[in-house]
């Protein structure tokens, strides 16, 4: 079933979640706020989410886009698991982007695995917003 948008004016819905165990979500909040200010509906799922919870939330909330924030170093385990669950549960078409502390080599591998964009420390909010908008529009 294709994503149905009655008009181009329907806001982009994006899930912002922090998988794993690190307890620092300032970065995720800054991004959530920037996406809000860009007119998006941001479902803020908060800290310490399991891949299962993130995928469940994304499907129930019928989001156009998922943003993951991670600082703990567990991205190579958690991100592929999220992508797999999305595929299995019918959310293959939902683009996923990520931000946090992710070494370049890992970032390359995660992009090959299907993470659409990865933002390191120091990325401008404009770049994140623009990328999020274009990922959501391409998917719809």
């Amino acid at each position: 079933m294709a994503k149905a948008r009655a008009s181009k004016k329907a806001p982009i819905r994006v899930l912002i979640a922090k998988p794993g165990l690190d307890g620092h979500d300032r970065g995720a909040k800054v991004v959530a706020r920037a996406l809000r200010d860009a007119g998006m509906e941001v479902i803020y799922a908060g800290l310490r989410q399991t891949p299962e919870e993130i995928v469940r939330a994304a499907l129930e909330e019928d989001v156009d886009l998922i943003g993951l924030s991670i600082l703990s170093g567990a991205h190579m385990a958690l991100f592929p698991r999220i992508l797999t669950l999305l595929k299995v549960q019918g959310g293959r078409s939902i683009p996923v982007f990520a931000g946090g502390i992710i070494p370049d080599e890992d970032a390359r591998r995660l992009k090959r695995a299907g993470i659409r964009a990865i933002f390191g420390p120091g990325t401008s909010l404009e770049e994140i917003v623009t990328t999020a908008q274009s990922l959501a529009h391409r998917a719809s």
Partner: protein
Amino acid sequence: MTGRTARLPPAARAIVDGDRRVLARTITQVENGDPSVDRVIRSLYPRAGRAPVVGITGPLGVGKSSLVNALVGRLRSLGQSVGVVGVDPSSPFTGGSVLGDRIRLERRADDTGVFFRSMASRGAAGGVAAATREVARLMDAAGFDVVLVETVGSGQVDVAIREVATTRVVVLVPHLGDEVQTLKAGLFEIADVFCVNKSDLPGSELARRDLTEYVGLGPKDAGWTPRVVATSTLTPSGIPDLVAAFDAHEAYLDASGGRTEGERRRLAVEIVGLVRDRVGRELTGRLERDPALRQLLDEVVARRIDPRTAAERLAAGAVRGA
């Protein structure tokens, strides 16, 4: 039952059969005013009207989301499935929104007895979104035993939940004001149940006493006197009492005939609202396109006709056309 199911459009059938992905997508379509969802909504209407729709309202920061989470836990332990709509405000400036009601939801990744949907108010005043009522009804038709609707943090006149919920819980906390605040019109008038949340804090006994006194000021022959319940999601305590209080109100609605009466009132409001939206859209469009109506507008601009007379002519036309 199979016969009726067989006549449903595929998406409606999927929703009735428990397909949560289709439910989620249909909710999006309702929110976006997508006309292609019309048949699905219409066909599911006869299947709704069974589940209690419990509205959770109150000022911001009183703990509505934590309370909803605790209620979900309690209802699940009683074997009831729960649909939740959590409404948060949209920005009047950018249209954007941060929907954070879900953050309090406990880990339920594999519990199919719960469905939680966050919803932005999208310009609607009063504490709920334009789509909230239809989405609650969709969850009802999908077979959830109870539907909880958490409003935007409410002010004194935000009473739109009255048009959505069968039972309204007004959530307050200690130290919100003295007993005169309870006499003020608006929010306090719509409560079927008052909940003094954060009752672990000092002052909760006073708040409870003020509310109990307030409900005692009502007419003696009123069929239902609002219950006052104290809760804490921290300790936790009072959650079973809160569920018992809204169950008691639902039982009262059935016993008194109040359910049908309330339903009639809400549906009348809904139908009039739908007509107003439709006629409004139609007229706005025609005032731009239709030469006769543009001429009428010109006459008003030139002060040869006054706005009331022009409106009367338009309304008469709209009623005749119906």
